[in-house]
């Protein structure tokens, strides 16, 4: 690509539960922090893209309104759990096209507790008891167990790994370690998924300032690719009522990863650190395969060999993932990007992956939508 897009600054409002704090408050905190770090003020950026799902009408405007920074184009972007990644794709693309020099990208959410209610499901599907997001996750987990040698113990090990990483993340919702026995003893929500294998809907915000770079320095956005599911694909996040008997469909994640690797000119072997969607423990294992971190059918072995641990060949979710942070839908993708920018700058403290140069962020969710972002650090 001709124009390099660099990350000028990042900011975060911690992920968790914050009684009395509005989604606008959280967005303001993250945006202010990112602008300060980038040394970018009012008038210094030409557009803003805000990823959010549940924040209502003109939510991004409300944040910039509270900061006295309206007047520029402000676009709210909704693509399910990939909303923040979609916002980043649009911002980076606008810079590459020459439309803007500097763009603010942010994401935020304040989720209700419990099973997520989604207007994606028609009222009759709710009435019939078919609007059960964790049940769709469970069917996916069962398929993975059938096809990839994954057991409930592997599912528990993903939770143990991510919760251990989350201990070192002050912006996480849960900061305590758990044992596999604890995870397996938690309530069965939808067999085989136990409560602690599912991330908690959450609150939080994240912001990234992007700008056109003359050379390659700091951290650059090498690729940001968003893809949706192919027609007829019945399982996964698309959850139509029916689809074709065909197991050869590439998933939205695989499609987005393929596009991102091509755009960035790198492959899975070039990655040093990954943040991936772990809405449930099986989702992370499936992502190993769909992102090409291991071969299809090899997720259990990849985990068992210790590869995705902090000490392993390719640490996955050093931030603790959504299992530790909770999931504020619109903020989660940019939360990953903020984590990876710290990693690539060498500033992730006790979570640092030594010598990280190339990083991948992955989100996938309802639609179905999947987004893969590849970042590179330039020492």
């Amino acid at each position, binding site marked *: 690509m001709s124009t390099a897009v660099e990350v000028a600054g990042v900011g975060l409002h911690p992920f968790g539960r914050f009684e009395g704090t509005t989604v606008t408050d959280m967005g303001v905190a993250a945006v202010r922090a990112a602008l300060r770090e980038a040394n970018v003020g009012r008038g210094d950026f030409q557009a803003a893209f805000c990823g959010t799902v549940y924040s209502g009408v003109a939510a991004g405007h409300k944040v910039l309104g509270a900061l006295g920074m309206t007047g520029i184009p402000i676009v709210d972007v909704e693509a399910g759990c990939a909303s923040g990644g979609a916002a980043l794709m649009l911002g980076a693309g606008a810079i590459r096209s020459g439309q803007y020099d500097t763009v603010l990208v942010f994401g935020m959410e304040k989720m209700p507790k419990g099973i997520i209610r989604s207007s994606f499901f028609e009222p009759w599907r709710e009435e*019939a008891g*078919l609007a059960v997001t964790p*049940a769709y996750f469970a*069917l996916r987990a069962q398929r993975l167990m059938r096809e990839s040698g994954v057991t409930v113990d592997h599912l528990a090990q993903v939770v143990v790994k991510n919760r251990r990483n989350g201990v070192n993340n002050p912006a996480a919702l849960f900061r305590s370690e758990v044992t596999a026995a604890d995870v397996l003893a938690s309530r069965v929500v939808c*067999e085989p*998924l136990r409560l602690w294998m599912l991330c908690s809907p959450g609150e939080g915000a994240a912001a990234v300032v992007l700008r056109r770079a003359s050379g390659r320095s700091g951290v650059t956005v090498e690729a940001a690719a968003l893809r949706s599911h192919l027609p*007829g694909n019945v399982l996964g996040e698309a*959850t*139509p009522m029916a689809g074709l008997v065909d197991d050869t469909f590439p998933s939205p994640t695989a499609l987005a990863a393929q596009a991102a690797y091509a755009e960035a000119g790198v492959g899975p072997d070039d990655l040093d650190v990954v943040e991936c969607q772990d809405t449930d423990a099986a989702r992370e294992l499936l992502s190993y395969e769909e992102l090409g971190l291991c071969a299809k059918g090899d997720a259990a072995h990849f985990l068992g060999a210790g590869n995705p641990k902090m000490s392993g060949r390719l640490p996955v979710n050093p931030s603790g993932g959504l299992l530790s942070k909770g999931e504020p839908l619109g903020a989660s993708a940019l939360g990953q990007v903020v984590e990876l920018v710290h990693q690539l700058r060498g500033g992730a403290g006790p979570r640092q992956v030594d010598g990280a140069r190339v990083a991948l962020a992955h989100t996938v969710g309802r639609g179905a939508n999947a987004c893969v972002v590849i970042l590179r650090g330039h020492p």
Partner: protein
Amino acid sequence: MSDGHSSSAVPVREGLFTSAEDGSPRLIGGLCVACRHHHFPLLTTCPYCSAEGVTEARLSAVGSLWGWTTVTTVPPGYRGEVPFGFGVVELPEGLRVITRLTEPAPDRLERGQPMRLVLTPLHVDQEGRSVVTYAFAPAVDPR
């Protein structure tokens, strides 16, 4: 479980399934005249190939179990009982359908077992009518 629901029963949505009086309901799907693939529920445009020539098709009442789990927590907008079975049944038309299952115990189900379409009551509406939807129940293997 309601075989052949009474006249006071209403479907959760019109157009999803036939309400046959003989107690053998059928799902109402679509068949694309261009790509010859079936879909469900019935649409006016084929969701696979975008062709507009779709004809109505009664789908097979018997399929095989592809995936299953149990819903233990009352999901949003649902007024019926828990737990209940939830899964995917594969129909001979080459279609995988997401569905309720009448059997909630996961260890009493196995992959590939024959499943038969039934109607199942969800709840009673404000007019005292039973609201019903489709589900699949374990079928006796015809062999």
